């Protein structure tokens, strides 16, 4: 009796899963699914929906990991691991919450772990001739306005910051996350983001000798 029940339950799960995977196809035709639709589908075991989320967010995930860890191979590994972990953790993801900062939190954590265990810590560098890059990565006119000498100086100062200062600067300015998203991505309260950010800016200013604020 008991084992029949167990077997029935397992079969039911299998069938239901296959059915939901088939179900995604027609819905994709028409308007693209929103993040929360995709997450809801992925939560029900729809792997195609999760692949779509990977496609949408792999760029920002890799960039985030790279900016934290400072090496391409580690960044790729961290981003990949984060997507796998996020998939397994989808059951605990609160429906309706924004997916991006939640994912980035796992990415940041993976990247921080790799940075801690790396024998040589990567530092960030400027793109070669960052003021005059050709092709699709052409800088905006504003980028060119920031003198290259000043950029080098600023980057050296950022590279020299402590981990938390660097993380908050990375999230807020290099990734352009909002304060709220930064809080979720780093697992800090909003007030902590504000205070750490102003501390990091203060340190940078001291380091750069900008005392006029």
């Amino acid at each position, binding site marked *: 009796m008991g084992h029949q029940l167990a077997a029935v339950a397992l079969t039911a799960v*299998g069938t239901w899963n296959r059915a939901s995977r088939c179900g995604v196809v027609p819905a994709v035709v028409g308007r693209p699914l929103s993040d929360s639709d995709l997450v809801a589908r992925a939560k029900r075991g729809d792997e195609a929906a999760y692949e779509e989320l990977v496609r949408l967010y792999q760029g920002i995930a890799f960039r985030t990991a790279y*900016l934290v860890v400072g090496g391409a191979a580690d960044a790729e590994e961290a981003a990949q691991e984060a997507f796998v972990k996020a998939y397994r953790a989808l059951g605990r993801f609160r429906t309706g919450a924004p997916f991006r900062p939640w994912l980035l939190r796992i990415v940041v954590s993976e990247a921080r*772990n790799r940075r801690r265990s790396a024998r040589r810590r990567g530092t960030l560098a400027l793109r070669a001739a960052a003021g005059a890059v050709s092709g699709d990565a052409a800088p905006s006119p504003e980028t060119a306005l*920031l003198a290259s000498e000043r950029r080098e100086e600023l980057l050296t100062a950022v590279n020299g910051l402590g981990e938390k200062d660097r993380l908050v600067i990375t999230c807020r300015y290099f990734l352009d996350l909002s304060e709220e998203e930064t809080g979720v991505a780093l697992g800090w309260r909003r007030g902590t983001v504000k205070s750490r950010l102003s501390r990091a800016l203060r340190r940078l200013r001291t380091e750069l000798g900008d005392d006029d604020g």
Partner: protein
Amino acid sequence: MAELERELRLLGAAIEVPPEPDLVRTVRARITEREPRRIARRPLVVVLAVLAVAGGFAFAIPQARSAILRFFGLENVTVVRVHELPPAIRGPGAIGERLSLADAEHRIGFAPLLPDLGPPDAVYLDPGGELLVLLYGRPVRVRLSEFRAHYSLEKFVAAEQLVQRVRVGARPGLWIQGPHVVAELFGQPRLSGNALIWQRAGLTLRLEGRLSRDQALRLASSIR
């Protein structure tokens, strides 16, 4: 201030970032890798399910992700049965930030439950601020983790390992005997020894250490 912030935004655009790799295929391969084995495993699952009924205690967890068992009373602990344990680090791993017990309590927002072992030798909070870890003994003999219902753990156990349903006082719990891999949301998967998991007062507790089942149950009952 505003000028420096503007400069930092511009700097972000000028930092060299290598071209992004395509992760879709590798992630797909990894999240589906257990699927083909599901069919092969099912007979074993059913056999062990019979044992569960017969023995009342021992039971198996099917390895397919879609059929992960969520235990009654332990909804936020997932146990996945696998042929081979995933790669994991040995030792305590990086837990997070080390704090005093009072600071940790303030940050996590609940009063930690404490076993009858005197004050912990070290207290850590994970980077997400949701998992509290208390370490006892030097070197560590007992590791007690506490988290609220919205956080959760994933555990991988080898096919041959039995997981036992136990009672901690009147509350349902889970005893995993022998080495298994525990994956917390943050940090790397870690090889763990014997572990007891149960819930109490809205918290999930996980006790790990060189303890027999009876020792773990006794220690768990001392927790206030």
